[in-house]
C-alpha cells in the first residue's frame, strides 16, 4: 500500500513525469507507425524511382544529351529529398520519444520546482512535435515565401523545434547538476527504479542483449564493409559516367546494376544496426515503467515477449532482405508491427492506471 501511494505520488495528474511518459510513448508509437507506412508504401517505390532517374541520366549521358542529364538529376534530387525528410521524421519522432521517457525516469533527480519541471516538459514536447512535422513538410513547402536563400519555412520551424528541445534538455541538465552538486540532498528513493517484476526483468535483459547485438553488428560492419562500400560508391558512379563518356553502353548497364546492389547492402546494414540498438533502448525504458502498466502480470509478460520478439525479428529480417527479398521484407515489417502493438498495449495499461489514480483523487475530494 505504501509503495502504491509512492508510485501514485510520483505520477500526479498533469505532472511532468506523466506528461513525458504519455507524450513519449505517443511519439514513439506515432513515429513507428509512420516508419512502417513509409517502409510499405514509399521506401521501395522511391528507391525504384531514384534508380530509374539515375539510369535515365546515364542513358542521356550515353546519348550525349547534357540537358536531359540535368533534368534527370533534378528528379533524383527531388526523390532523395522526399525519402530523406521522411526518414528524418521517423527517426526524430522516435528519438524524442525515447528522450521524453528518459527525462521522465530522471524527474526525481532534477532539483527544480514541479511547476518549472512541468513547463520544461511542455516545451520539450512542443519542440519534439514541431521538429518532425516541420521536417516532413520540407518536401512539400519547399522555398515558398521563404525569407532565406537556402532554407524554407518548414526547415525554419523544424530548427525552431530542435531549439526548444535543446532548451528543455539544458534546463533538465541544470536541475540534475543542482542535485548532484548539493551534498545535503540525500539518495533519491524512486519506486520506478526499485520495482523489479517479471516483465521488467525480461525487458531489461532483452534490451541490454539487443544493444550489445547492435554494437557488435556495427563494429563488424565498420571493420569489414564500411570503407569498401564507401569507396565503391564513388568508383561505380565514376565508372558509370566514364562508360557514358566512352559510349560504352555495357559498362553503364553493369555500373547501374552494381550501384543498386551496393545501395541495398548499405541500407540493410545501417537499418539493422540502428534498429537493434533503438529497440534495445526502448525495451529498457519500458522496463522502468512496468509498475505504471495496469494489466495482469501474465499479460504484461506476454506483451514484453511480443515487444522483444518484434525487436529481434525486424533487424534480423532486414539483414536477410538481400538474400530473400520481399519475403524477408514482409517479415521485417511484421516485426515492426509487433513492437507497435506491444507498445500500444503498454500505453493503454498506463492510461488505465492514470484513470484509476485520477478517479481515486476525485473521490477523495
Amino acid at each position, binding site marked *: 500500500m505504501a509503495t502504491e501511494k509512492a508510485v501514485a505520488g510520483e505520477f500526479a495528474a498533469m505532472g511532468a513525469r506523466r506528461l513525458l511518459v504519455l507524450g513519449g510513448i505517443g511519439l514513439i508509437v506515432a513515429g513507428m507507425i509512420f516508419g512502417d507506412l513509409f517502409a510499405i508504401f514509399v521506401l521501395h517505390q522511391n528507391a525504384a524511382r531514384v534508380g530509374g532517374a539515375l539510369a535515365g541520366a546515364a542513358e542521356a*549521358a550515353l546519348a550525349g544529351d547534357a540537358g536531359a*542529364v540535368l533534368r534527370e538529376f533534378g528528379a533524383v534530387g527531388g526523390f532523395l529529398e522526399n525519402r530523406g525528410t521522411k526518414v528524418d521524421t521517423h527517426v526524430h519522432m522516435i528519438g524524442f520519444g525515447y528522450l521524453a521517457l528518459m527525462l521522465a525516469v530522471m524527474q526525481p*533527480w532534477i532539483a527544480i520546482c514541479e511547476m518549472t519541471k512541468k513547463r520544461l516538459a511542455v516545451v520539450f514536447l512542443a519542440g519534439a512535435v514541431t521538429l518532425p512535422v516541420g521536417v516532413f513538410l520540407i518536401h512539400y513547402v519547399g522555398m515558398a515565401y521563404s525569407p532565406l536563400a537556402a532554407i524554407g519555412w518548414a526547415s525554419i520551424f523544424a530548427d525552431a523545434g530542435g531549439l526548444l528541445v535543446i532548451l528543455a534538455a539544458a534546463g533538465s541538465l541544470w536541475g540534475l547538476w543542482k542535485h548532484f552538486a548539493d551534498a545535503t540532498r540525500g539518495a533519491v528513493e524512486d519506486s520506478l527504479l526499485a520495482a523489479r517484476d517479471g516483465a521488467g526483468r525480461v525487458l*531489461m535483459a532483452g534490451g*541490454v542483449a539487443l*544493444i*550489445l547485438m547492435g*554494437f557488435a553488428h556495427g563494429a563488424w560492419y565498420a571493420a569489414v564493409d564500411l570503407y569498401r562500400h564507401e569507396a565503391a560508391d*564513388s568508383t561505380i558512379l565514376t565508372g558509370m559516367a566514364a562508360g557514358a*563518356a566512352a559510349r560504352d553502353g555495357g559498362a553503364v548497364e553493369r555500373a547501374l546494376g552494381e550501384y543498386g546492389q551496393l545501395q541495398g547492402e548499405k541500407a540493410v546494414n545501417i537499418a539493422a544496426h540502428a534498429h537493434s540498438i533503438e529497440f534495445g533502448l526502448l525495451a529498457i525504458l519500458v522496463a522502468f515503467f512496468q509498475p505504471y502498466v495496469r494489466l495482469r502480470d501474465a499479460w504484461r509478460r506476454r506483451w514484453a515477449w511480443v515487444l522483444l520478439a518484434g525487436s529481434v525479428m525486424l533487424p534480423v529480417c532486414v539483414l536477410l532482405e538481400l538474400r530473400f527479398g520481399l519475403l524477408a521484407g514482409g517479415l521485417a515489417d511484421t516485426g515492426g508491427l509487433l513492437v507497435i502493438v506491444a507498445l500500444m498495449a503498454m500505453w493503454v495499461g498506463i492510461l488505465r492506471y492514470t484513470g484509476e489514480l485520477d478517479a481515486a483523487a476525485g473521490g477523495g475530494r
Partner: protein
Amino acid sequence: MKARKILVVGGLALLIWGMGYGFWYAVFAEHQALEGMGVSLATGFAAAAQRDAAGMRAAMERYKETKYVYDRQVDIHGHWIGLAMVLMILGMAMERVGYSERVKTILAAGMLAGAVVFPLGVYLQTVDHGAGPRVVAGVAAGLVIAAMGGMAAGMLKERAE
C-alpha cells in the same frame, strides 16, 4: 552514486552537445552539402555527355569528397546522441549492476570516454584522411563495447546473487 552521476550528467551533457551539433549542421552545413553533392554528380554526368573526360573526373572527385564529409557529419550527430541515450539509461539502471562502486565508476568513465571520443574520431576523419583518426574511432568504439559488455555481465551477476 558516482557511476550514476558520471553516466546521467555526462550523458545529458553529451546529448545536448550532439543536438547542438545537429542544429548547427542543419542550419549551416546540410543543405549546402546536399546541394554540393547533387551539383557535382549532375556536372560529372553532363561532362560525360559532352565527352569531357577530365571535367567528368574532376566533378566526380568533388562528389566523392563532399559525400565523404557529409556521411561522417550525419554519423557524428547520430552517434553522439545515440550513445548519450545509452549512457543515461545505463545510469538509471546502475542499481542492477552487481559490482562494487569502484568497478562501476571505472566502467562508467570508460563508457563516457568512448562515447565522447568515438564520434570525435569520426569527425577527425573529415580533417585527416589518414589511419590515425580511424584508429582513434575504432579504439573508442571498442571501449564502449567493452564497458557495455562489462555492465551486462554485472547485471547477470546481480541477478544470480
